[in-house]
């Protein structure tokens, strides 16, 4: 259990650094999502399942969805669609 705790905390640290180092905004949001999920497991290990539920639903779920929509609004997600169009052309 101790090992799992350490691995998860290291994972969270790596994610936190990676979020700020990533140039691609979409990847940054996905890494942030992964960090939230790891965080919710840590909450369970700390014996607070209610916080784990909230973290999983809000931190990993709804916040990331809102960020995805925000990225779409500021036209930050467009590589894939444009790449496809270029290939078709």
């Amino acid at each position, binding site marked *: 259990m101790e090992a799992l705790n350490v691995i998860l905390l290291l994972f969270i640290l790596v994610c936190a650094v990676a979020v700020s180092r990533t140039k691609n905004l979409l990847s940054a949001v996905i890494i942030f999502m992964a960090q939230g999920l790891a965080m919710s497991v840590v909450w369970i290990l700390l014996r607070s399942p*209610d916080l784990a*539920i*909230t973290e999983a*639903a*809000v931190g990993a*779920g*709804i916040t990331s969805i*809102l960020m995805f*929509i925000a990225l779409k*609004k500021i036209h930050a997600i467009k590589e894939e669609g444009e790449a496809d169009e270029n290939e078709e052309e």
Partner: protein
Amino acid sequence: MKTKKNDPFQHLKDWIENGDSALEVEMQDELDDTESQPLPKEPAGPQKKLFVLDKKNVLKRLNIWYAVAAFAVCLALIGVLVYAAAQLPKFGGADTLVDSEVTAFYVENTMEETGAVNIVTGIILDYRGFDTLGESHVLFIAVCTVLLLLSIHGEKDEEQKLKADAYDRHFEPHHDEVLQCCARLLTPLVLIFGLYIIANGHLSPGGGFSGGAILGAGLILYQNAFGYKKTERFFTFRTFKLVSLCALLFYSLAKGYHFFTGANHIPNGISAGHVGNILSAGLLLPLNFVVGCVVACTMYALYTMFRRGEF
């Protein structure tokens, strides 16, 4: 009309051109003589130029001061926080907070007084009931702000509405089979799990906030898979307004009544019931439901407002 519209731009252009030429002249001036003061008798042109230079210098100085001040404020804040953290009781220590009167009181009396097996819910919805009321209102105010900023409801420009609609599913397929199959399976389970967490808030870990967040996530999943036409059957802006208003009103009134009677030692007719039953713990169950409704509505409203600017 056209000349009027052109006027400000022309003015701006003139100003920019003047400014640019002023800069060039200024550079030469600086080379010639470092001390150049504005003379009152000079015509308007040179005065303008000097003004531009002064502004630039002031801005530069301000920027430096801004950086220094920001650094100082950050250092001060870090110092205060580190000092405060050093004063905190040791994490996980054997005698940490054992002698705290409030903690002991909560641990001993919460279950008896509120009828909640999960004493966290007992504390946040009973002893600290106004905290939770404030949190619900914060969520509501957040949605109101988002409505103000992002809503296109009542926008007279039809074109913009059509544009928003067209852009809405720009990157997504209209009827994604995989997503729809998963959503058909998962949405009822997610919603039931959310309701279970809310209804069992006073018995097991969870409560209004976690359950409401799960309900909101379930609604968002359903909306994502099946589109606005399906969700509009049961959740419109009207529903959001009604549910939020009723929930917050009920919470305020119930909590106000509870605190008023409790503070004045008047019997309030709310009994804790048989501890451990679902229908027990007096006000906690309805309050959990109310908080859950507010949170679920807020989550869904934030999502739709961000996505389309409309319900």
